[in-house]
């Protein structure tokens, strides 16, 4: 299957009083038709900004895409004018945000919020839009759509609101959905419901998804391919199975080791990554992870390692990636 979205060497910086924050610093990834790709990392690693940049929703004037290309269905989105971009947003690329309470308008009924994009993007009449909105609610598992359409966001629970967000995202038949921490604000049992719903719908409707998350478990269950980010860069990427079975970057390895797992015997002590993530204004000269890395060598402090092949469909940005593979299996 062909590439639907291709991001090449994207650089999104924030120009602040304290200096230039290099939130996304040379990131390349792609999403093929119908597949689910994950951007994983901890707060401040640049995963959300990488996705927002695709829709050109980075907060100006501080935030600016300073370099790179974002090619969607063969067109470079960075070259489009505002009007062209408006047709992409919501119609071809939709977004599901983390916090369903703040991303829905509290003073408009659910029906109004669902029909608006249908009328604007698809040119449906108010009556057509209303009946389509009812179908969308049914699609995401909300019963009694006629009554529900007249209600306001505060009358829905968190899980229901996130279902509405999914319905809104699907409303104009997009080919790509960007989901930014879609279940982080939800309880585990509701999280499972929403993720199952999204996976099922994306398969049935053939929509590709870019999931942005910090939760390694969510990635394992739902993603086909994974990009791990640290300090504004992708430091490892590959198929989900490859990354989890054979991590080839010390950061990925550290993340996997630091979380307690329900399917494994309880460890007497957890194995954290020591130290803190770096300040994005004052990044170290070499590999940004080197100060926290237990495998670091002299070269790591001076040269930034590029993403290099580390296996079948698997790349790692680490000078000692080769040595890691064998050590992991101990």
């Amino acid at each position: 299957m062909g590439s639907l979205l291709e991001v090449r060497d994207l650089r999104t910086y924030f120009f602040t009083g304290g200096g230039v924050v290099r939130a996304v610093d040379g990131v390349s990834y792609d999403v093929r038709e119908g597949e689910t790709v994950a951007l994983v990392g901890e707060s401040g690693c640049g995963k959300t900004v990488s996705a927002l940049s695709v829709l050109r929703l980075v907060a100006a004037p501080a935030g600016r895409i300073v370099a790179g290309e974002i090619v969607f269905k063969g067109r470079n989105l960075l070259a489009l004018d505002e009007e062209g971009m408006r047709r992409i947003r919501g119609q071809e690329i939709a977004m599901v945000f983390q916090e369903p309470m703040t991303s829905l308008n509290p003073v408009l009924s659910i029906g109004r919020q669902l029909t608006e994009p249908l009328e604007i993007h698809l040119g449906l009449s108010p009556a057509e839009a209303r009946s389509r909105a009812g179908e969308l609610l049914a699609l995401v598992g909300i019963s009694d759509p006629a009554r529900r359409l007249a209600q306001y966001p505060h009358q829905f629970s968190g899980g229901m609101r996130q279902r509405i967000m999914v319905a809104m995202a699907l409303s104009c038949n997009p080919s790509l959905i960007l989901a930014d921490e879609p279940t982080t604000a939800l309880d585990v049992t509701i999280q499972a419901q929403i993720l199952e719903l999204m996976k099922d719908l994306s398969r049935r409707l053939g929509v590709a998804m870019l999931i942005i998350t910090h939760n390694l478990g969510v990635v394992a269950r739902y993603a086909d391919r994974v990009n791990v980010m640290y300090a504004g860069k992708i430091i490892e990427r590959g198929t989900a199975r490859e990354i989890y079975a054979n991590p080839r970057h010390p950061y990925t390895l550290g993340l996997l080791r630091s979380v307690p797992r329900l399917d494994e015997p309880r460890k007497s002590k957890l194995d954290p990554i020591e130290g803190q993530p770096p300040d994005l204004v004052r990044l170290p000269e070499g590999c940004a992870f080197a100060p926290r890395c237990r495998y670091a060598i002299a070269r790591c402090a001076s040269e930034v390692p590029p993403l290099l092949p580390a296996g079948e469909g698997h790349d790692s940005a680490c000078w000692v990636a080769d040595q890691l593979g064998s050590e992991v299996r101990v």
Partner: protein
Amino acid sequence: MTALAAAPLKSAEPSPTGEVILEVRNLVKHFTVGGAGLFGRNVGLIRAVDGVSFSIQKGETLGLVGESGCGKTTTGRCILQLERPTAGEIIFEGQDLTKLSSAQLRPIRRKIQVIFQDPYSSLNPRMTVGQIIAEPLAVHGIVPDRSARQARVHDLLSRVGILTSLAARYPHELSGGERQRVGVARSLAMEPSLIICDEPVSALDVSIQAQIINLLEELQAEFHLTYLFVAHDLSVVRHISDRVAVMYLGKIVEITDRRALYEEPLHPYTKALLSAVPIPDPAVEAAREHVVLKGEVPSSMNPPSGCVFHPRCPIAIEECRGGVPELREVRPGHRAACIRV
């Protein structure tokens, strides 16, 4: 560190001693909503905690898990006497806290400390790290002398892994992990015997979570602390707890030791919760059977009749709508509130 240093170091032996430090009996906390004023007509009752009983032994960690609104945080706040319970007893070191006046509670407050979820909002932004830790030492008269207090603050900071040079900094200058360490140091300053940890790592990044959990475990062994660990993350709770209680809509539905809860869960809600936790390994995930619960947690203003879990329960029968199931001992030391197990 006077009294702290005097505490016996028992890190080598298993932590619980058999001596009960805290016993909670039939704890009930109801909140009224509405009442007087503009919206006065709709008086409702939120049954946040509805008849909860458990005990904690000295030196052990009891995990309290459940989803938002299940009453786990309110239970912790009742123990801290930040909320006065509607009914029930909270017996701490032999004294029923619910019977004590504010003045009588004061010396006891020192011994029950809390670590909050959000290190961003639980530290005063206008005080330096040093002042935050020194204040309770002065207020409770633990270290009245100013220079001794300074030394004590430095001791505490280094014990929780913070450079003493950070004592002059303000909370906003610290990272989330460092702030949570300051929160831990502040609790530790009171030389408590019981610490209520309310979601202490859920606001932190994964790589930092493990650092804080390891710190809490080291401190427990060193100072012989008892923890009530309130959290929603079942993997973290399994790691840190000796025993675990699962709450749903204001009630404990299952309570037992860690191994039994995770290896032989009895209650259908516990089973569903465990199944909902994604495991960071695609190969394991693909082979796993997922029980996805239908529906959502009902409102605690209008809980279902009979067993509160029956509308979502995969094995519910007609009888479940009738009586409230008793939390009964199904196996030795393993209690569950379900008539079907």
